[in-house]
């Protein structure tokens, strides 16, 4: 009888039902949409920032940083083994390690920055990421645009460099930076060519924000616990942009979702209060017939729970559809990765049912406390 009465009342007072349902649906849709967009934004930011390059540089102990910035590489060296020690360290603060050895050489009258790079070493035990940077095969080189143009080099050519014959695997696009005068080779080839086997002079890394907020001091301390004495420098413009973008999106979501939930709670509460007022006579007669508080409260709380469940499903569908529709335009790089977050459906169902129960609790209690004589005397 309770369910029959609840459904009949919903059909009778459609406006009240729809008003609360729209509030819950809108709140869930906005929350789900924002969370889906935030998730997409996080992926997009990570991807874009990753594409911008490494943001941490680890150089040997005693490196004069003024000298480093004027040369673009460290004069000192450290063992290649350092990169494996970092990879096995279990640190959560860094990802994507690339060991490099760089020296300026003169080749065919050109000033060249010869750069040996090891294929990326991933952190042991962590999730495997798609590799960053260049993956140069032994016996091949990648040639910067300025050198290639100056020396008339094309892909497939073979060049003689410091006693080694190497095949040109790629000519890089113009970067407008020192990269245009680089010749990249496999680290072990370059070490051999320079007579510096087992030596490197920098490790590039990507600072990971997945372990929570960290300052550069935190990162330095964690790295020095593994490699005492090394210098750690941060390419701040990249790091700050990366952190700020993510913070901005998270701050936006952190303000919007609670605001929307609060508005929906008030709306549902007022809607229930209006429903209680509309049904004063009905509640009065129920009390006169000896109906106890529980079924009377159940009429209101049950209706609102139903609204919560329906609103959750509808809101999730609407929020997800909107996020996917517009998200692919907003986040073109990771557009294909924007997908329904099915886990959110469960949270939405539980959350909106709870929201409706909380919002309608006081009005339902006021219905239960209503004096039947007051209504029944109104002839």
């Amino acid at each position, binding site marked *: 009888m309770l369910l029959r009465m609840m459904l009949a009342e919903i059909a009778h*007072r459609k406006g009240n039902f729809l008003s609360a349902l729209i509030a819950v649906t809108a709140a869930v849709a906005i929350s789900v949409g924002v969370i889906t967009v935030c998730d997409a934004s996080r992926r997009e930011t990570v991807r874009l920032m990753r594409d911008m390059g490494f943001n941490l540089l680890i150089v040997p102990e005693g490196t004069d940083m003024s000298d480093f910035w004027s040369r673009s590489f460290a004069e000192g060296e450290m063992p290649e083994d350092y990169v494996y020690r970092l990879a096995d360290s279990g640190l959560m603060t860094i990802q994507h390690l690339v060991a490099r050895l760089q020296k300026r050489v003169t080749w065919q009258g050109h000033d060249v920055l010869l750069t040996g790079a090891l294929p990326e070493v991933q952190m042991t035990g962590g999730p495997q990421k798609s590799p960053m940077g260049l993956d140069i095969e032994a016996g091949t080189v990648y040639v910067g645009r300025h050198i290639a143009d100056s020396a008339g080099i094309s892909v497939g050519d073979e060049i003689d460099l410091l006693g080694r014959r190497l095949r040109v695997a790629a000519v890089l696009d113009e970067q407008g930076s020192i990269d245009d005068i680089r010749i990249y080779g496999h680290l072990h080839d370059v070490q051999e060519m320079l007579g510096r086997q087992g030596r490197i002079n920098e490790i590039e890394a990507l600072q990971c924000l997945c372990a929570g907020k960290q300052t550069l001091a935190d990162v330095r301390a964690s790295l020095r616990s593994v490699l005492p004495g090394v210098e750690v420098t941060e390419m701040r413009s990249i790091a700050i942009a990366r952190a700020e973008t993510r913070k901005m999106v998270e701050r936006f979501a952190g303000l919007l979702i609670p605001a929307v939930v609060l508005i929906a709670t008030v709306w549902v509460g007022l809607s229930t209060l209006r429903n209680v007022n509309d049904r004063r006579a009905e509640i009065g007669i*129920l*009390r*006169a017939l*000896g109906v106890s508080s529980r079924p009377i409260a159940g009429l209101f709380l049950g209706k609102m729970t139903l609204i919560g469940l329906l609103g959750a499903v509808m809101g999730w569908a609407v929020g997800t559809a909107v996020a996917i529709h517009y998200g692919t335009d907003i986040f073109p790089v990771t557009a294909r990765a924007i997908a329904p977050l099915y886990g959110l459906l469960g949270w939405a169902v539980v959350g909106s049912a709870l929201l409706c129960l909380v919002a309608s609790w006081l009005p339902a209690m006021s219905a239960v406390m209503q004096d039947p004589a007051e209504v029944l005397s109104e*002839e």
Partner: protein
Amino acid sequence: MIALDGVSKVYHGAAVEVRALDDVSLTVDAGEFVAVRGPSGCGKSTLLLTVGGMVRPTAGTVGIEGRDLYALSHAERARLRADRIGFVFQMFHLVPYLSALDNVLVPALAGMRPGRVEAAAVLERLGMAERVHHRPPELSTGERQRVALARALIKQPDIILADEPTGNLDPENAAAVMGYLADFHREGGTVLVVSHDALAEEHADRTLRLERGRIV
């Protein structure tokens, strides 16, 4: 069955004090049909709601089958109403969005056992067989009062408390409704009707007069 002893009820307004019942003592025996007559505002409705356990008297006691009604807890009084007392009101107080049949079944929310077949049978007995699926706005006033009466009867109560049950009805329907109350009385039920309608007197075993909150 019903015993009021020195019952007074005073309503305290902003500026005035209204004494709706003033030292009322009366007894209604089991199986008795008692009519209480009096002009509007004499305290008839307050008397009925007090007997029904919904208005706590300012003074005095109300006994139902020897139990002090207002010494019971809120829940116990509700249980007593659900099990033993049927109400009929001048304004019917039907649930507007439920069919006549479902209105009769509303006491199920209080744990009443009879189901849809019994409810349909009671409506049929009151001449409503063709109207069971109609909602109150689709029924005449006489039909609405019959549905309200059926809602009271479905519980098979010991007592029916009726507040101006014919107040909104034409003479034909008024006679029919009063006839149904008389049938209930003939079958052993106790009826307490408050009304200014002389029709109640015709069926009552006893008629009391209430004026300014006092039985005279």
